[in-house]
């Protein structure tokens, strides 16, 4: 079937599904060998990706002795006591709640202010428009480490060091360049006629934006929201500089502390349980939103 398909020229009538390359015409037997070998290579990489994660989960059900004597074996029984100890000691739920608060507010702020600025810069002509746009977008190329020391000093001077407000404002500010870059491009692709009709019907600029343009821009907003949520959730550098006290920590600080915490030397299962606890929500979120996550994270790289 593949052979005949390749040999007939592409039909001119209804456009066929052209999204994927066709099978070149090879001898069938050879093709099966090639497909088989391909699966071997693909499975090898799947195993490479999965093993560290599965191993972490398995180790969380083991005892210390099992971990040291048979690191690769299955746990002798399904024990959850390490999870209980990790829940109390590693304070993972507490850090996670802190992170939800920070990331929730900062992503909301990023999306609100980012899309407002992007909309104005994309759709309104005024002196200084290009300058402001360029100022925002150039932020994408500067390494954050260049600003690290002065940023710390500014936040300290404003009395925002070690506060969630400080971290949230910094997250918003550093997420603006990409958000504005992407959303401005998105707003430019939307048709102007709907907005014009709304304006003729007497809607104000602000109302047109929130009731007409934002719903139209939903696909782009969703992609960039996911991009920002993941980026801010996984941020580690800014929290360790701006949020030093332990009872305010976000999840990445809590996890990184696991391996410097001497207490774990005697209780390995609970270290693995704490890690697993941090991974579980990511797996759940990933499985639910995997399509949007893939397109959201690769959004910046595809034209």
């Amino acid at each position, binding site marked *: 079937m593949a052979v005949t398909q*390749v040999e007939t020229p592409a039909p001119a009538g209804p456009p*066929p*599904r*052209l*999204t*994927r*390359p*066709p*099978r070149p*015409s*090879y001898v069938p037997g050879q093709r099966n060998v*090639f*497909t088989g070998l391909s*699966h071997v290579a693909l499975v090898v*990489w*799947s195993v490479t*990706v999965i093993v*560290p*994660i599965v191993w*972490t989960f398995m*180790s969380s059900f083991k005892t210390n002795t099992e971990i040291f004597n048979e690191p690769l074996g299955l746990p002798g029984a399904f024990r959850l006591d390490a999870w209980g100890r990790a829940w109390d000691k590693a304070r993972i739920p507490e850090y996670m709640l802190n992170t939800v608060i920070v990331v929730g507010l900062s992503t909301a702020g990023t999306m609100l*202010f980012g899309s407002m*600025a992007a909309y*104005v*810069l994309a759709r309104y002509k*005024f002196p200084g428009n290009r300058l402001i746009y360029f100022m925002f977008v150039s932020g994408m*190329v500067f*390494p954050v*480490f*260049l*600003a*690290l*020391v*002065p*940023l710390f*000093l*500014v936040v300290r001077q404003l009395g925002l060091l070690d506060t969630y407000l400080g971290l949230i*404002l910094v997250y*918003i*500010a550093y997420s*603006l360049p990409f958000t504005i870059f992407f959303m401005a491009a998105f707003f430019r692709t939307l048709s102007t006629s709907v907005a014009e009709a709304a304006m003729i019907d007497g809607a*104000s*600029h*602000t109302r047109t934006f929130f009731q007409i343009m934002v719903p139209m821009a939903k696909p782009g907003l969703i992609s960039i929201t996911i991009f920002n949520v993941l980026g801010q959730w*996984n941020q*580690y550098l800014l929290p360790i500089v701006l949020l030093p006290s332990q009872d305010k920590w976000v*999840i990445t*600080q809590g*996890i*990184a502390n*696991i*391996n410097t915490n001497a207490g774990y030397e005697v209780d390995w299962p609970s270290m*693995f349980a704490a890690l697993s606890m941090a*991974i579980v929500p990511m797996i759940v979120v990933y499985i639910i939103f*995997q399509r949007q*996550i893939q397109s959201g*994270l690769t959004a910046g*790289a*595809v*034209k």
Partner: protein
Amino acid sequence: MRQGRYPFIIGFLVVPVVLYAVFVIGPYAQAFYIATTNWRGVSAHPKFIGFENFTRLFQDPVFWKAISHHLFLLLALPVITLTIALFLAFLLNVAGGSRSGGMSGIWGSKFYKIVYFFPQVLAVALIGVLFQAMYRPDSAGVLNGLLDLIGISPVGWLTQPNLALWSILAVMVWQAVGFYVVLFSAGMAAIPAEIYESAALDGCGRFRLFFGVTLPLLWDSLQVAWVYLGIAAFDAFVLVQVLSVDRGGPDGSTTVIPLEIWRQAFTFSRFGYASAMGVALFFLTLTFAVLTLRVTRRERIEY
């Protein structure tokens, strides 16, 4: 147009611009100034010392060591990641069977992509802790446990100076590959089927198909990927800070400039010196980005 246009524009821009100016533009601009002072954070008035920080920096062996690590990562990270990702993406898209009209990728390609992409969602700090357990120097780690099975004595993945950076590189590759598989798959799927068909009709083998058709048509994605990975090679902060022995050790054999900036600033309070390093990092990143875009510039192939 109607009244209220300028109040609207200003109203929408004021918050994002102020946030951005205070937390991003201001710090970046100040960094260049602080780099020319001997500020230690305690004195009220930093003293201007010109380029002294930079002359000291260029005589600092740790700085040159860090630069050499960046050069290593700059070469090895893109080459290894892109080779694996291109290979896997090609298998996913071209090695498929001939079901449903012969246009589909390999069976299970969606599943493979979901698995490969997952590490992208995990925080680098978490991955660092996870791999610290994987790389354990005794046979309780996964890698040494595997070596133990075939009778090889444990290897100090992170404790041997000549091996530690490779171990960290491997984790970076482990996390990055999935992203580029998804990116390249999208690029390959966008290549029109007719091109593959005519190449196959002309008797083009799989290897020529890959190097003669797929690769040139993916040039844009490859260029973007190279820049992204290069920027990642100039960072590597979180992984080195969390995963390596002694934060950049053993004996400075894995240290990177971002880590030294952080250490100089927040361990030793040498704000001036840290900022000078930031300026150096900025020019390195800029040089890399400009050079890459120049060298890899090609006539775009329209299709």
